[in-house]
């Protein structure tokens, strides 16, 4: 029987990226996927008539441009269209809009507060500086601070140098930025509640933390450090839905000679004598490989697909206690037409972007309190987009697709499984919230798909439906991700690697974990590196 050079488990964007870089280096690579379609959580699905849903992830920005170029994704059909504004609707009928044009943006801030308008300039500069610092680390393997190996020492020195070169003031600023809550951080700049509420959302999306939890300022960064067409911090839509990203990477992978197999769920990662041997599929097939790379999150990889006895005890305990908490839900909605929002003028460019319905910091935090009590937020933070305003290919002419990301939604309701009635109730909460700002919205709904963490887990295989494959808290970042001592993509079993978002630098459709893991694998195999590491743009 054939032995592959490498098997990559899971055809999500990271698995595919990893597989593509390995194939590009000349390895004989098989990528197996449990679903009968590829993409993981970067997926476009046709679940209702002629509509295409970006079923999980819904906007694109974090995908590393170096990877885009190295895999020539444009040749495989990927187009990302930036979108303009965004809006937060207010209970009093007003709204706060966000604009890319800095003068317009300034005027909008000033409509609420002159002070905030001025502060916003300082804010952008400060946050962008933090972005530059972190962006440098995205395509680098985190050093092991306990190691004395030259490579680790050099990498530590590099980090230290980056930090040191900021100068004294900026160093302090960085320490504070990495440890503060998003609420406190914003308090230092802004005075207007709705402005802070509108910005704070990026600090909690996908996390089981509230805006007042220390550490959330960093999460903010995680949503700002992306770019579209070289515009740092901007967001865009992948034409044809987020599945276009995976499809393009898969295209690159296959063009490099890789083999893709869907409907091939992995039951077990097979080991022999402390070394990986291959995978056993749920249908009973066994496939051999010298290397197995898991694109699944660490809990799925080690707790479900391996035996406890295969792993060091301390490692097993850490994986078991790895924080990967379901905190988000999703609604995908097919619309008969464009809903109107009376607060905005017709055709307002703000409708191109993300829309929110929480206008105060207190409401933001209260949404989190509900989650802590084991229930979905009764007044949730909804990040809503209508991609079809920008990309008409996702729905029939004149019709629209709406994606609602919902924070917070627990993996279980008060500790027990979700019932269908509860799921519908959760969906109704979101629809009602939007309906309060758009009188015709409910009548335009043709089809709704409600996804709690349970559905997200079942579909995309994300444990607890956690979109980042694990919380982005300090204890799980950089050299702590996923497990201290194992942050360099190598699992504690010979030939086994991790390349999913559980590894550095974490979640978001960034593809950096997949690429970084490929670099480490090629290094172990003494192959020529195919993975980009330098930033041309900073």
């Amino acid at each position, binding site marked *: 029987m054939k032995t592959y050079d490498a098997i990559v488990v899971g055809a999500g964007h990271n698995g595919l990226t990893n597989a593509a870089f390995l194939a590009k280096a000349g390895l004989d690579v098989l990528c197996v996927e449990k679903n009968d379609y590829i993409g993981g959580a970067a997926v476009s699905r046709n679940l209702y008539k002629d509509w295409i849903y970006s079923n999980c992830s819904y906007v694109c920005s974090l995908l590393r441009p170096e990877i885009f170029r190295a895999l020539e994704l444009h040749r495989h059909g990927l187009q990302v269209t930036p979108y303009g504004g965004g809006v937060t609707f207010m209970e009093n009928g007003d709204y706060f809009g966000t604009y890319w044009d800095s003068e317009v943006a300034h005027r909008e801030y000033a409509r609420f507060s002159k002070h905030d308008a001025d502060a916003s300039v300082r804010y952008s500069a400060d946050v962008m500086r933090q972005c530059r610092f972190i962006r440098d680390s995205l395509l680098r393997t985190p050093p092991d601070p306990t190691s004395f190996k030259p490579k680790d020492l050099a990498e530590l020195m590099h980090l230290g140098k980056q930090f040191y070169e900021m100068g004294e003031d900026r160093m302090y600023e960085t*320490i*504070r930025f990495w440890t*503060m809550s998003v609420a406190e951080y914003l308090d230092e700049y802004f005075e207007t509640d709705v402005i802070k509420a509108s910005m704070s959302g990026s600090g909690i999306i996908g996390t089981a933390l509230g805006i007042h939890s*220390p*550490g959330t300022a960093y999460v903010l960064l995680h949503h700002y450090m992306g770019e579209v067409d070289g515009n740092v911090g901007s967001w865009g839509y992948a034409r044809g839905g987020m599945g276009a990203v995976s499809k393009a990477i898969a295209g690159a992978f296959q063009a490099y000679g890789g083999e893709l197999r869907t409907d091939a769920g992995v039951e077990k990662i097979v080991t022999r004598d402390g070394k990986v041997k291959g995978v056993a599929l749920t249908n009973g097939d066994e496939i051999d490989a010298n290397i197995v790379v898991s694109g699944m999150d660490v809990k799925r990889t080690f707790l479900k697909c391996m035996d406890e006895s295969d792993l060091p005890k301390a490692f097993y305990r850490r994986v078991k206690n790895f924080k990967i908490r379901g905190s988000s839900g999703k609604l995908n909605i097919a619309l008969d037409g464009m809903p109107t929002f009376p607060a905005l003028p017709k055709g307002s460019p703000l409708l191109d972007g993300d829309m929110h319905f929480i206008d105060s910091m207190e409401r933001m*935090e209260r949404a989190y309190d509900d989650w*802590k009590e084991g229930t979905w937020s009764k007044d949730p933070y909804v990040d809503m987009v209508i991609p079809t305003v920008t990309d008409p290919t996702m729905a029939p002419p004149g019709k629209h697709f709406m994606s609602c990301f919902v924070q917070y939604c627990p993996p279980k309701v008060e500790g027990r499984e979700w019932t269908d009635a509860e799921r519908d109730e959760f969906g109704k909460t979101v629809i009602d919230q939007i309906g309060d700002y758009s009188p015709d919205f409910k009548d335009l709904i043709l089809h709704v798909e409600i996804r709690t963490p349970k559905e997200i887990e079942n579909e995309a295989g994300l444990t607890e439906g956690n979109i980042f494959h694990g919380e982005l808290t300090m*204890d799980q970042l950089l050299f702590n991700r996923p497990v*201290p*001592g194992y942050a360099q993509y190598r699992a504690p079993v010979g030939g086994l690697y991790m390349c999913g978002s559980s590894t550095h630098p974490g979640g978001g459709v960034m593809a950096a974990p997949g690429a970084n893991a490929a670099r480490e694998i090629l290094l172990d195999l003494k192959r020529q590196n195919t993975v980009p590491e330098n930033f041309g743009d900073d």
Partner: protein
Amino acid sequence: MTEQFDVIMVGGGHNGLVCANLLAKAGKSVLVLEANEQAGGAAVTQSFADGYSVSSGAHLLYGLQPQVERDLGLKVRLAADNMSTIALSDDGKHIRIKGSSVQGVGDNDQAEMRDFHKQMLKFSSLLRPFLNKTPPRLGAGGREDLATLAQLGLKVRLLGKTDMRDFLRLIGMNIYDEVEERFSNPLLKGAISLDAVLGTHLGPRSPNTILTLLYRLAATGGRIASPAGGMGAVTKTLADSAQKQGVDIRTSKRVKQIIVDNGRATGVRTEDDDVFMSMTVVSNADPKRTIMDLVGTRHVETGFARRIHHLRMRGNAAKLHLALDGLPAIKGLDKKDFAERLVIAPDADYVERAFNPAKYGETSPNPVVEMTFPSLRDTSLAPAGKHVMSAVVQYAPYELKAGWDDAARARFEDAIMDTLARYAPDLKGRVVASELLTPPDFEQRFGMGGGHWHHGELTFDQFLFVRPVAGAAQYAMPLDGLYLCGAGAHPGGNVSGAAGRNAARAILATEKGS
């Protein structure tokens, strides 16, 4: 004629007294100006009902630094040392915690507690040497700064691979996840959570709460003591010692302005318009009061003023004092148990739920409580046969949305009494008099801004190199001749004397250097 001193100390709290003492010892003429009738700041014993006295502010000693006692050549008398913590359960099945040992929980929890305590102690001992040191400056490149940084780095490395990894992982974590991972007994989880959030604007689920716990342990390894004569006796000892050293302490003298002349602090003006001059002014007041009120922002650089303005120091801890005609009955407790530290924090979620309302400017309907009955070990505090209860109660936010009017105070006191009555049903009937001190009361009585015990939250962004704010962590404020020596400076709160001692050393070192 204006009087002239080498050093003027604004405020006679415990840190101010320690600092003044050490400066006098080095030959300086030192004047301490204290707004209240007695020195001691928030570490005082005050009468709150006829015949009943209590430590009004801090009531337990967690961290008095042995270096302070040594340098000053004094010894604080303790009524109780190495106290146990009893985590109360409403069914009388309490658990007792002392250091690493815990009674009343399963074998597994006992073993985990030993392991947990050992680990926390090890990590906190990394911080300990830094408590009694001026924090290094980053990047500015003094040789001593680099040496201190290198020392910290080396200490972390010397932990060995496993511990170092755990340290780097745990240091940013929340206490909730750690206790949930380790323990099964809810009382144990609650009590440890309480230790981590006491005096902070954090709940157990907030990241940073492992740091606050480590900080508490760093001072004295978690030993809890109760001073004889209440906390006032500690500061009385410090004041006496200072006076013996020649420090001039004047009470009922409130400083209203730090005089700045040509970009230099040159003296102070008091409320009654007396002026005192000195080359060095040291403030024991909190950083906000010092810079915003006493100095005035026009004398400092804008960025610094902004940072001080944003310093987070909104207190959440209230105190309830009860004068009792006898000890209440608590199911499962002997009389001698009342001499220990009793806590009401039945589980970690309870503590978190108590925290929730504080985020919205509301008090906890079911507060967490740390209580002591100091009269049991110290008969000077109450008439014979009678008792005093002193309790720290959270959460009572400084900025109450509805305002701290009489109704709000009554509502909160009722909530505390109802909580206490669940454990001590006959307590209400024994109350002779009571006193509730909210954060605004602390601010008013002791002058601590926001009523915050630590003169500022102990979070990473206000810790070590960045306490009180970035660029001013070395006791010298960015105004010539002005220093900070209170809890707002490194290493922060608790009755430790460390900030005062470090400040004195920094001041003397500067003079030597110049």
